[in-house]
């Protein structure tokens, strides 16, 4: 399935469109999605460090999805670098 992932903060620089779309095997977990994103960005945005992506969280509009959670089908996700509000 195709999963759209919106980019924020330092990761916005990885794609001018503000999002990437990945082909994700059905039944994948968030941990597996993270590795797919690391691989995708290594090829398409080599300036983004894999270390940063590994410190990122994934989320829907409503909640953060931790590593063990399945990637929801047909739902747009966001990848969230470490936060620095206030």
């Amino acid at each position: 399935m195709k999963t759209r992932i919106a980019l924020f903060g330092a990761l916005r620089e990885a794609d001018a469109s503000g999002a990437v779309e990945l082909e994700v095997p059905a039944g994948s977990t968030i941990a597996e999605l993270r590795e797919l994103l690391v691989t995708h960005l290594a090829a398409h945005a080599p300036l983004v460090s894999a270390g940063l992506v590994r410190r990122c969280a994934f989320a829907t509009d409503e909640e953060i999805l931790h590593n063990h959670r399945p990637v929801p089908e047909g739902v747009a996700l966001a990848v969230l670098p470490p936060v620095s509000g206030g």
Partner: protein
Amino acid sequence: MDGLHVAVVERGEGALDVAAALEFVADPRFGGIASFIGRVRDHNVGRSVTGISYDLFVPLALNRFRAIGERALMEVGAPLKLWIAHAKGRLAIGDIAVVVAAGTPHRDEAFRACRLAIEAVKHEAPIWKQEHYVDGDSAWSEGCSLCEEDRAHTHAAHGHGH
């Protein structure tokens, strides 16, 4: 939670309103109001800063602000009105980046609710700060990971002075 106002304000559409926040949390039952106002300062870690751009994932940020409000209500254990608003977009030195105001019956509850809310906004809400420097360079702040595995490793190691 009644008495909770959460907002993300686009810089181009207006500024954060401190007077409105204090008015919102006022109540005949309440003798104490505490507020925190975060403004853009002109330096960070030895570099001269000319401004900050804030990026937010708005729907989740508002959801987090509401959850923070519920938590503050539970922790304080007293009637509470709470205002949490954060700016989005490019801000100049002195612009207001964040406003938290808490109204409660007594001062201790107000201070505790306000402190809890601003710390949670800084460490848990999907907000990113990009500093712009005098020399034309820009950098995203390092920040605090929302990934549970990473939090378990790093939270013990740093004291959250940011």
